[in-house]
C-alpha cells in the first residue's frame, strides 16, 4: 500500500515537473542577429511575486538571451529612497543586470520623474521621453502622464525622420484595454493613434492595467498591455471584442524577437506558463510598413 502511495506521489511530482518544464518551453525562433527584448510593466512593488517573475525572466534569459528590457511604467512604487530602488529594481533584476541586460524605462503615474529620469540604470538620460534604435527597430519611450504639444511635436518629428523598418512605441497608459479598473485611455488614443497610423508604428506596448492582454489589431497596429510585472489585478479582465488574448491570473512578462519582417512574441507567467505566443509580419511592400498579418497565436 505504501509502495503504491510512493509510486503515485512520485508520478504526480514527475507529472507536475514535466508540465512545468513543458510550460517553460521557448516558442521564439532565436534567429541569428535578431533584436531580442523583454517588456514588463507595473513591476516595482518589491513583493515576492515581483522577485519570482524576475527569476523566471532570468530563467528564460538563459534560453533566450535578450539584450534589454523595456519598462512600461510604475517602475518604483511608493517612494524613492535608495532602499526602494534596491528592493524594487536592483535586487529583483540583479541577475539580469549582472549579465549586462539594459533597462529602458518609461514613466508611469506612480513614478517620481525627477529621480527616475536621472537614475542611470533606467537609461533615460535625464529625459521624460526619448528614442533609441536596435538593429532595424526604433523604440519610442513616451511620457503618457504629460503629453503636451512639445512631446507631440518631438514624436511627430522623430517618427517622420525614422528610417527604421519597425517602429515600436511604449508608454504607461494603454490606448486599448479591456480591464475593468482603468480601461482604454480614450483621450490619448484620439491624439496618438492618428500619429501612429500616419507614421507606420506597428506595435504599441503599455501597462497601467495590472493584467496581460493582446488586443486585436486596431487600424493595423498591435497593442499589448503587460501591466502585471509585479502588481496583479486578478479577475479584472473583461474580455471584449478588443481582446485577442488575455490573462489575469498571474504575473506576466513579454518576450519579443524581431528579425527582418517578422516579430515573434511570447508572454510568460510567473510559474513559466506560456499564456500567449505568436508572430506579426510587417508588410514591407505596401501599407506604409504597417503590420497586417498575424499567425501562430495561441492562448492557454
Amino acid at each position, binding site marked *: 500500500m505504501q509502495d503504491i502511495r510512493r509510486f503515485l506521489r512520485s508520478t504526480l511530482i514527475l507529472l507536475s515537473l514535466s508540465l512545468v518544464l513543458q510550460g517553460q518551453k521557448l516558442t521564439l525562433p532565436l534567429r541569428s542577429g535578431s533584436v531580442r527584448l523583454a517588456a514588463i510593466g507595473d513591476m516595482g512593488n518589491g513583493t515576492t511575486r515581483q522577485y519570482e517573475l524576475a527569476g523566471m525572466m532570468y530563467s528564460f534569459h538563459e534560453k533566450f538571451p535578450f539584450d534589454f528590457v523595456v519598462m512600461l511604467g510604475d517602475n518604483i*512604487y*511608493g*517612494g*524613492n*529612497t*535608495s532602499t*526602494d*530602488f534596491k528592493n524594487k529594481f536592483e535586487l529583483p533584476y540583479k541577475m539580469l543586470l549582472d549579465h549586462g541586460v539594459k533597462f529602458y524605462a518609461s514613466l508611469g*503615474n*506612480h513614478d*517620481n*520623474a*525627477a*529621480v527616475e529620469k*536621472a*537614475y*542611470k*540604470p533606467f537609461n533615460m*538620460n*535625464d529625459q*521624460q521621453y526619448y528614442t533609441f534604435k536596435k538593429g532595424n527597430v526604433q523604440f519610442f519611450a513616451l511620457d*503618457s*502622464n*504629460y*503629453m*503636451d*504639444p*512639445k512631446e*507631440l511635436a518631438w514624436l511627430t518629428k522623430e517618427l517622420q525622420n525614422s528610417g527604421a523598418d519597425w517602429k515600436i512605441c511604449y508608454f504607461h*497608459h494603454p490606448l*486599448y*484595454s*479591456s480591464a*475593468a479598473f*482603468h*480601461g*482604454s*485611455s*480614450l*483621450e*490619448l488614443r*484620439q*491624439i496618438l493613434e492618428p500619429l501612429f497610423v500616419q507614421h507606420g508604428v506597428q506595435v504599441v506596448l503599455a501597462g497601467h492595467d495590472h493584467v496581460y492582454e493582446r488586443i486585436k489589431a*486596431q487600424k493595423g497596429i498591435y497593442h499589448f498591455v503587460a501591466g502585471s510585472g509585479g502588481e496583479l489585478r486578478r479577475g479584472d479582465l*473583461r474580455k*471584449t*471584442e*478588443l481582446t485577442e488574448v488575455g490573462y489575469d491570473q498571474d504575473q506576466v512578462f513579454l518576450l519579443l524577437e524581431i528579425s527582418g519582417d517578422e516579430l515573434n512574441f511570447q508572454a510568460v507567467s510567473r510559474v513559466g506558463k506560456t499564456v500567449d505566443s505568436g508572430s506579426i509580419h510587417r508588410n514591407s511592400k505596401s501599407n506604409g510598413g504597417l503590420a497586417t498579418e498575424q499567425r501562430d497565436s495561441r492562448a492557454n
Partner: protein
Amino acid sequence: MRTLFWVLAIASGLPGKSILVPTIQNEKPALSAQEAALTKDFSDRIKAYIALQKKLEASLPGLKSSNDSAEIASHALTLRVMIIEARPNLQQGNIFTPEMSAHFKSTIRKTFQEPGSGVVRRTVQEGDPPKPIVVRVNGVYPDDSPVITTPPTLLARLPELPKELTYRILGHAFVLLDNKTNLIVDFIPDAIP
C-alpha cells in the same frame, strides 16, 4: 453613481463606437491685446522662476545622472530647500495672478464642460487618486503619491511651459509644479470643476 461612471466608461471604450472628443489641433485661439499682455506677464514670471532655479542649482555640484538614487534625491532635496529659502513668503498668486487665474479657470472650465469633454474628465478620473495634501506654495508634492495625467487637450490650450515645470491636477486645485524638486511653485484653488 460610481457604477454608472464605469458602465459609461467601459461602453465608451468599445470599438466602433464613435467618440466625440475635442480636437487638439490649433487649440490656441488668437489672443486679445489684454490676453496677450497677461500671457506675457505670466511668461515673464515663469522665466524669473527658472532663472532662480538655474542660479541656485549652479551653486550645487553638477548632477546630470547617477547610479545612486540617493544622490539624485539628495540633490533634488537640497535644491528644493534652497528655492524655498530664496522665496520664503510667497503666497498663492505669485505666478497665477488673479487675472491669469481667471483666464486659466475659464480655459479649464471650457475644456472640462464643452460637448465631448467626457474623455477629458475620464483622463482625470481614471487615474489612481493622489494622496490628499494641503496644497500651498512651497509645499511638496509627496514623493510616494501617484500623479493624475494632465489632459493633453487642456495642455494644448495653455501657455507652454519650459521642461523644468509642469501643470498638475491635485483634487480641485490646478498646480504649477517644479519637475526637479516636486515643489509647488503656485496653484489655482477650485480650478477643476
